[in-house]
């Protein structure tokens, strides 16, 4: 009896193992990508690429979960802590130190070396992710701010697009009419304002927030000059600018309420919600002060972080990223928002899949200007080959923008506000 029961149990166990084994062997590796490219057409483009990849790689299933920039700094660390983080997460350089501290972020140095051999990364794209003896994200696309306007508006006013601060302020004043604000610049305590004020800091010669020893040098004359000029321009901006993000600025430009805005791009909005006349859409580099020796604009090398140490999932994620970087796929990926996302690899910059997009063809001169502007782009906390991970605390609290609010909302002088801003930054990065 005992022997018969043992035999039955053995048969049952064997049957179970047999039924599970084939399923395990055949089930594809599932990996998830979190990204913050929420507009439906971007989600659709990413999905199209994922579907192609999944069809060509039946042993892997890549899926996407769009997230919100406003929540991701909270949600991503919480997901890592809870043990249900995605395998891949898009981000910007100052986001990586936060996740690295949690111990889940993978060093992608070897993977970058492989990709670099095939596609040749622009060194400036990789640099912000390289610190603490590792590389903490794979750069995917670049974004740079430019000054956008309508040529016809300047022609009607009898002025030329500005290249210096004096010309910029004069243009903002000249273009302010009963129906139009001369310029649209935000004053919200938000990332967009961080970006626009940093544009002016770069062009005032105040792009270095840190000394080389890691101490802060935010409070200096050049920074004060940048904030003073920003508040001078601000008087020609719409009164609801303190609650603006990128969307409001683009809408203000599209509906002709704002004559000029600083933005990564306006091409899609302009093409679909405004005149769509490529000859009239003007774009130039951010104007610069007389004292600036190294003008430029804020620039982000967006990357993808890998948050899994499971070998199978890591391999699947890397295979997807490598597939995405192939020139025939990379241009289509960048053109999920034509004219916004710029290549970070040499073969990507010449890829037909990038330049053949109908919108890029239509606005080719504007895209070429953006690419040219990106050559002098930089990001606070990641300048001159230095990387200071503590910038993530300053960035997450939008302290550049908060300093601006001390001036335009609370009425402090630029010098007082910048001094207070430095104190806030020291508190933020302190224990």
């Amino acid at each position, binding site marked *: 009896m005992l022997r018969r029961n043992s035999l039955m149990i053995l048969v049952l166990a064997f049957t179970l193992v047999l039924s599970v084994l084939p399923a395990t062997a055949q089930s594809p590796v599932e990996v998830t990508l979190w990204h913050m490219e929420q507009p439906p057409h971007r989600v659709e483009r990413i999905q199209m690429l994922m579907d192609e990849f999944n069809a060509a790689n039946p042993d892997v299933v890549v899926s996407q979960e769009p997230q919100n920039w406003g929540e991701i700094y909270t949600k991503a660390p919480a997901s890592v802590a809870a043990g249900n983080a995605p395998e891949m997460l898009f981000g910007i350089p100052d986001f990586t130190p936060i996740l690295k501290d949690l111990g889940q972020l993978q060093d992608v140095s070897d993977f970058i070396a492989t990709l670099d051999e095939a596609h040749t990364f622009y060194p400036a794209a990789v640099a912000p992710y390289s610190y603490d003896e590792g590389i903490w994200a794979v750069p995917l696309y670049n974004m740079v701010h430019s000054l956008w306007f309508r040529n016809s508006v300047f022609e009607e006013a009898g002025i030329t697009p500005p290249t210096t601060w004096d010309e910029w302020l004069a243009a903002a004043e000249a273009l302010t009419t009963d129906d139009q604000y001369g310029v649209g610049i935000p004053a919200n305590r938000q990332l967009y304002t961080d970006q626009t004020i940093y544009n002016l800091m770069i062009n005032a010669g105040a792009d270095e927030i840190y000394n080389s020893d890691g101490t802060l040098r935010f409070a200096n004359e050049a920074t004060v000059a940048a904030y003073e000029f920003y508040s001078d321009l601000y008087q020609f901006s*719409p009164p*609801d600018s303190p*609650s603006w993000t990128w969307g409001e600025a683009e809408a203000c430009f599209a509906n002709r309420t704002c004559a000029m805005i600083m933005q990564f791009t306006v091409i899609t909005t302009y093409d679909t919600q405004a005149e769509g006349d490529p000859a009239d859409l003007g774009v130039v580099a951010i104007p610069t002060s007389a004292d600036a020796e190294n003008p430029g604009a804020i620039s982000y090398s967006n990357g993808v972080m890998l948050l899994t140490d499971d070998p199978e999932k890591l391999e699947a994620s890397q295979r997807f990223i490598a597939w995405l970087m192939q020139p025939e796929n990379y241009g289509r990926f960048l053109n999920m928002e034509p004219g916004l996302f710029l290549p970070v690899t040499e073969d990507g910059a010449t890829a037909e899949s990038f330049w053949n997009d109908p919108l890029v063809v239509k606005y080719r001169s504007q895209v070429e200007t953006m690419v040219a502007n990106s050559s002098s782009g930089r990001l606070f906390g990641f300048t001159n080959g230095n990387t200071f991970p503590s910038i993530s605390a300053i960035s997450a609290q939008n302290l550049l923008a908060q300093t601006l609010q001390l001036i335009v909302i609370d009425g402090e002088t630029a010098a007082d506000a910048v001094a207070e801003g430095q104190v806030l930054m020291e508190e933020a990065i302190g224990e």
Partner: protein
Amino acid sequence: MSASITQPRRRGVGTPRWLGYAFVLPLMLWLAATILIPLVQSVALSFQNVRVIGTPGEFVGFANYTRLFASERFWEAFGRSLIWVLGNAVLQTVLAFAAALILKQSFPGHRVARIWIILSWIVPTVVVVIIWRWLLSASGGIINYALVALGITPEPIGFFSTGDGAFASVIAINSWRWFPFQAVILLAALQRIPGELYEAASVDGASTLQKFFNITLPGLQSVLFVMGLIGTLMSFNIFDVIWLLTQGGPSAATTTLPVLIYDTGFRQFRLSQAAAISVVTGVFLLLFALVFMRFAAPPSDDGEEGRI
């Protein structure tokens, strides 16, 4: 016989004592899992120095509380929370009373109006916020367009561009969202006041104001007490409307305590300090509830002083 009627039934015959506990046990376990455990964890967290969620921390005693009570930002946010509660209470009560008194009247379409008024309350917060941001926008918003077109203001108003303007706007929008809920409750309470009382008062020559203060207001005392208690606690803890509209700005002008807690925990990455603010806020609200119930409770039906 009379004893069997007047004495309350304690328990069904043959019903074991444990059955009652068994019925409430799942709920108690659920409450423990969703409220008690997080509460205890928050208190424990407030005595550590955890910055980012998921990272380890060390015991630091009362350091977070010491820093908190010395922080100007905390006391400013605390003051703003009190103004926020008061502003919302006054505005919502006035609007709710007016709406309830109007809706109590019988007029063509009054049933539709009673349903229609709660629309603003049932619409999701994020939709309310988007609608109001569009309406109040200085570059294309219909309210500013109307104000300028009617010559009321020479140029568009930036409702969120100054601290006072933003705080007043947020209070107004939140009140607009919540007053219908209170109006419906008040309407239900108003309909319970016997009409004969008003008729008798009219016969005695009472004015409208006299009827309001001597009949309507006392008749609503119980409801007003509950609304005062629940409304204050709910209003104090409102986060979504403020965050979605202003994120606590401009320049911290709309940063109430719940906003400060979020900002401290998830933008400054000082989770333990945020926990300390939560604990202090929780204790304050608990004390408020106890004092309110002790001194503001209406007399019970049997005429005794109100005690809960």
